[in-house]
Structures are given as structure tokens and as C-alpha cells.
């Protein structure tokens, strides 16, 4: 038996568990978003009273901010993979800033809708579906920002090194997912639904 070489054993490589785990989480989260998006699409134009989606204005600046944060976090991933921690920190901080600007933009939009247009989650069916879908996405941005700021904190304390590159990439996957979902939400809410 010992004469038979075991080919598979020599290069036995399996996918990283962090990546597989994060992809699984993303699949699960996608199902949650799918249900909310389906509800939004199904209920477009079915409100029997109250404000309609025409009161929305397209958040172009917001969208540019969030989508470019995917690019900056990708730059950060590259920096840490090469061990350039200071550059990594800079890109990471920029990513966080873009995320915070996005949230601030959403807050401003909601303040206008609630204060001037009188649209709350209770007002009508459109309000319910709009705030729950956009709010669900915003919640994910908040969760992402909490995780990003933890990494930022550890970076400032000097605890992050090249050896964490894979973990950073796994975390970035989540951020990319949040951005990709925004593309869907943006298309459905502001382009098709308006």
C-alpha cells in the first residue's frame, strides 16, 4: 500500500472558514433584503391615501459617497496585504467618513420627509415600506460602521498588522455587500418606484 502515492494529500487546501462564513451570512442577509424589496415593489402605487413616491428626491451625492467607499476599503485591503499599516489606516478612515456622510445624508433626507412632507412610517403604506426598506439598509450601514470603527480603534492602538489581512478582507466583504444592496435599494426606490 505504501507504494501508492496519495496525490490529494500533498496540496490539501480548503477555502478559508472566515470567507465561507461571511459568504453564508451574506446569502442569509440577501434573503431578508429580498423579502423587503419584494414587499416594496409589490406595494408600489397601492397606497390608498397620503404622499406618493414623487416627493422623493434622488440622493445622488449619498450614492456616490457610499459606492466610492467600496473602492476606498478595497485600497485599504491592498495596503494591509502589503503591510503598509499607515496607508491602510488612512484608507480605512476615509471609508468610515464616507459611510458617516451617507448616514448623515439619509438623516437629512428623512428629516425633510418627516418635517416638510409629513411622511412617517405610520402615514400610509408608502411610508411603511419606504422607511422599513431604507431603514433596514441604514441599519446595516450602522452595524458596518461599528465594526469598521472597532478596527480603526485597534489600528490607532497599533494592534493591527499584516497578519490580520485576511480578517480585514472578510470584514470588507460585508461592507461591499452593504454597498451592493444599496444599488438594489436605490434602483427600486428612487429609479423604478418614483
Amino acid at each position: 500500500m505504501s507504494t501508492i502515492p496519495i496525490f490529494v494529500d500533498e496540496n490539501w487546501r480548503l477555502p478559508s472558514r472566515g470567507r465561507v462564513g461571511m459568504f453564508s451570512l451574506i446569502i442569509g442577509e440577501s434573503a431578508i433584503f429580498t423579502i423587503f424589496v419584494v414587499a416594496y415593489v409589490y406595494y408600489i402605487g397601492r397606497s390608498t391615501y397620503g404622499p406618493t413616491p414623487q416627493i422623493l428626491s434622488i440622493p445622488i451625492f449619498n450614492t456616490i459617497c457610499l459606492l466610492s467607499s467600496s473602492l476606498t476599503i478595497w485600497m485599504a485591503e491592498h495596503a494591509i496585504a502589503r503591510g503598509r499599516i499607515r496607508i491602510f489606516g488612512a484608507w480605512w478612515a476615509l471609508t468610515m467618513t464616507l459611510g458617516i456622510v451617507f448616514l448623515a445624508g439619509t438623516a437629512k433626507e428623512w428629516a425633510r420627509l418627516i418635517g416638510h412632507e409629513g411622511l412617517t412610517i405610520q402615514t400610509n403604506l408608502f411610508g411603511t415600506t419606504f422607511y422599513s426598506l431604507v431603514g433596514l439598509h441604514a441599519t446595516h450601514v450602522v452595524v458596518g460602521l461599528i465594526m469598521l470603527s472597532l478596527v480603526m480603534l485597534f489600528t490607532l492602538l497599533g494592534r493591527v498588522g499584516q497578519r490580520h489581512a485576511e480578517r480585514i478582507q472578510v470584514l470588507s466583504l460585508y461592507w461591499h455587500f452593504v454597498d451592493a444592496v444599496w444599488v438594489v435599494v436605490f434602483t427600486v426606490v428612487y429609479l423604478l418606484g418614483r
Partner: protein
Amino acid sequence: MADQAFPIPGSLDATPSHGAALLEWLHSWVVTVDHKKLGILYIVYALFFLLVGGAEALAIRIQLVIPNNHFVSPELYNELFTMHGTTMVFLVGMPILFGFANYLVPLMIGARDMAFPRLNAFGFWMTAFGGLFLYFSFIGGFGLYGMGSAPDVGWFAYVPLTAQAFSPGHNTDYWALALIVSGFGTLGTAINIVATIISMRCRGMTLLRMPLFAWLMLVVSGLTLITITPLTAAQIMLLIDRYLGGHFFDTQAGGSAVVWIHFFWIFGHPEVYVLVLPAFAIANEIIPTFSRKAIFGYPAMVAASVGIAFVSVSVWAHHMFTVGMTSVSNAFFVLSTMMVGIPTGIKIFNWIATMWGGKIRFATPMLFCTAFVFQFLIAGLTGIMLSVAPLDWQLHNSYFVIAHFHYVLVGAIVFCIFAAIYYWYPKATGRVLSEKLGKWHFWLFFIGFHLTFDTMHFVGSLGMPRSIYTYEADRGWSVLNFWISMGGLIQAIAVLSFTWNLIDSYLHGKEAGNDPWDAWTLEWSTPSPPPAYNFAEDPVVRSRRPLWDLKHPQDPDWKYER
């Protein structure tokens, strides 16, 4: 000398008192991240709720044993059938499947633990909290009839009944919140199982050499990812409606109650497969071992499992034929539902072909699995009957439907769970369960099961609707209902003998040794119970039956497998 003044707990020469030892033992179970301990916790938790849900079923059966009975109040009756369904699906079925997956998957694929041990503990404690939270509603829930109301809206919680106007108070919210909480735990565990199976296999354990148990658990966990999350989403919508004044399911504002039904069954139907595929997983291990043959058609079994998962996400609206859909939708869901029969048929043929020509040993696990194959066949056939929309219009919400899905949930899943406990109990505890009590358990449960659920088909065909509190004597349902309840009683006696077996064999059972069944998968190469690290050396695998190769070096499997 300082050592003597302050003895270090757990040090070799310190002998702690009984109380301290007990406390330390309990503490070790609470803080554990070991997949085997968490698996046992899951299974014990699920068995506890199996007894609770069973007691609720018995109360329902006592209420229905004679016409115009008043054993429980109508209000309590509604709570009983709601809690029975919710308990059995979410606090028994899911946890026990994750319990077996937790305990067995790392052992079967030659890993030392799950991919994320702490996430594993998180998942269990979330699930445990969800279950206790749900049952706290019996004390703390405030509903239509005052304090101490459990959820009473059916396990599917259809709107508008669950709207704030018709279900005031918060007992419905106990249902939603408890399931959201345990749903997060479930999601975490599903992620963990997928990551474990993909990333933690030992050397040589390619995907097509994995035991079918691990394959099925991979499919189930993948399916869970996209199954439990729609329920969470729908429940969040329900809570938005109930607490924030939303209008998702509010017809007057343009919302739609039918959307809830769709969302619920988008979760609810794949959920059935999430529950039944682990039963297949168990049968896939037990039937070959006791037939002394390798499983017939391994690749077909894998393909059929993946096929079932795929088809199962496109059949949900067969629960909704009476809601009033278009003919096109009806036809689509009729046909997609019938398609499920193809991969499941492949599986049944493969199990029978595995037994065919085998040298079958009818030990208790094999008895349960043999009964499972035939009962699952009947469950599948009544399923195909119900998938025909015009027949479903007649039988919808009758006891025929109850009989059909209990044939799946009890006749297939519970039978396989019992088989699994008899089969792997020696591995987990080091002792074999008593065969004599096991035979008693099997035959009593088998007779009770058939008495109850075969008879239910007839009473359903005679028009008895589900969820009714009582019935008039002149309907012709009385005799049948009496026998259904008697069957329930026999099943209860069987479960008691099983419970006694679990306790008695733990204390006085026969020593099991490493491999009491002469089986072929990796878990049987470890001591019983396995040490915390599972394998002293990482195993290397060259075929689907590594222990066969070890036991038969002159005739190993890897010579023939391609």
C-alpha cells in the same frame, strides 16, 4: 504553604466538596464551546421540549376524545395547538437537527471542532433563550383574555387575526420576538455548519468522499440560510405593523393579508425540508450499517438532496390553493410540487436497494429506519394527492392535511430522530441503550402512530376541520376520534419507556466500546465518549468508508471508488 491556605480550584490535590463539584460541572456546561457538549445541550433541550409539545398534543387529544368535551377551555385550546406547532417546529425539530449536526459533523469529517466554536455557543444560547422566552408567555403574556396568555393565533399567525385590533396585548409578540431571537441563533449555527463542512475537512476528505450525513447537513444548512431569514423579515414587518403603526398587512391602507401568507410559506415550506433532510441524513448512515452494505447510488443521493433543496423553494403556494390565486399560479405550484416526488423517489429506491441483498440486522435503530422508509413513502403519496389543486380545495384545512404532515413530521422525522438516538447514544455516553426496552419503544410507538395518524386520514375525509375546539355527536367523527386519542396515549407510553431507557441505560447500560455497530464512518474510530480534541492525530481518508479500509486492509474501498 500559601497553596494550602488558598487551594486552587481544580488542582490535583484539592478535593472540592460535592456542592462545589456540582457547581463546577454546571459551569463547564454553561461556558463550553466544545461542539460535542453543545450538541448534547441542543439534543437535551429539544427532547425536553418534545415532552412539553407532546403533553400539549395529549391535552388536545383528550379534549377531542368525545364530542362536546370541556376538558380545557376554548381559549386554552387555541393556545395549546398554537404552542404545540410552534414548539415542535422551532424548539424540537430545528434544535435537534442542529444538535446532531453539531455532535457528528466534526467527528465525521475528521475535524477537532466546528469552524466557529464561540458562534456555536452563541447559537445555542440564543435558541435556548428564544424557547424559554416563548414559554414565559404562559405566565407573563397579556392577551385578549387577560394575563397568562400564550400565543393563540396558530403557528402560522395569519393576519388580520394577528393585527393589533384583533390580537390586543402582547402574546402574539411573544411568538414573533421569540422566533426572531431563536432565528438569529439558527442563522449563526447554519453559517457555522456550512463553514465547518467546507473548510474543516481532514486530509483526503473530498466532497465526494464525505459521509452522506455531512452532505445532507451541508444542504440543510444552506437551505436554512435562505429559509429562516424570510420568516425573520416577515416577523419584523408584523412587529412594525403592530407597534409602529405600519400598514404592510393592513388591507384598508392598501396592504395585503395575502402577502403575509406568501411570506410565511416562503419560509414554511422549505422549512419542512430543513426538518426532513436531517431525517434522510440519519437514514443514510443507519441503513447501510445495518444492511452491511455501502449505500446504493451515493452520487444520486447527493444529487437528489441538492435537487430537493432547489425544488423546495418554489413550491410554497401549494399551501394557498384556497386563498384564490390565478389558474396559472395554481398550475405552476401543482407541477412544481409534484416534481418533489422525483428526487424523493430516487432516495426511497436507493434505500431499498441498499437493503436489497444485504445481511440486515434488525436492531432498534434499523427498525425505526425501516418503518421510516415506508411511512415516508405514504406521506409522500398523500402529499402528491394534496398537491392536486381541485382535491386540495376539498381537503384543505381538514384533518387529512393534519394526517399528511404528521406522517412526515412524526412518521419520518421523529422515527429517524429515535433511530439516531439509539444509534449514536453509545458514542455520546459510552453505554448502549437497552435493546429490550428499545423494541418495546419501537412497537408501541409504531402501533400508536398508525392508530392515530392512519385514522386521521379518514376523519379528515369525512370533513372534520383542523383547529376546532369540539364537535357535535351526530357528525360520525366520534368513534374515529376516540381511536385517534387512544393512539396518542400509546405513543405517550412508548415515549415514557424511551425516557426511562435513556436514564436507566446511562446508569446501568452495557459498555459500548468504540464501535458497537461495526460501522464505517470516522466518528466510530474515536473512544466513546470522544475526548475533547476528538482525534489525537488528524485522520487521513482515502475512501467513503475509512473504517472499512482500516478493518479490511486486503480489500479496501479506495481500490474501487472513482
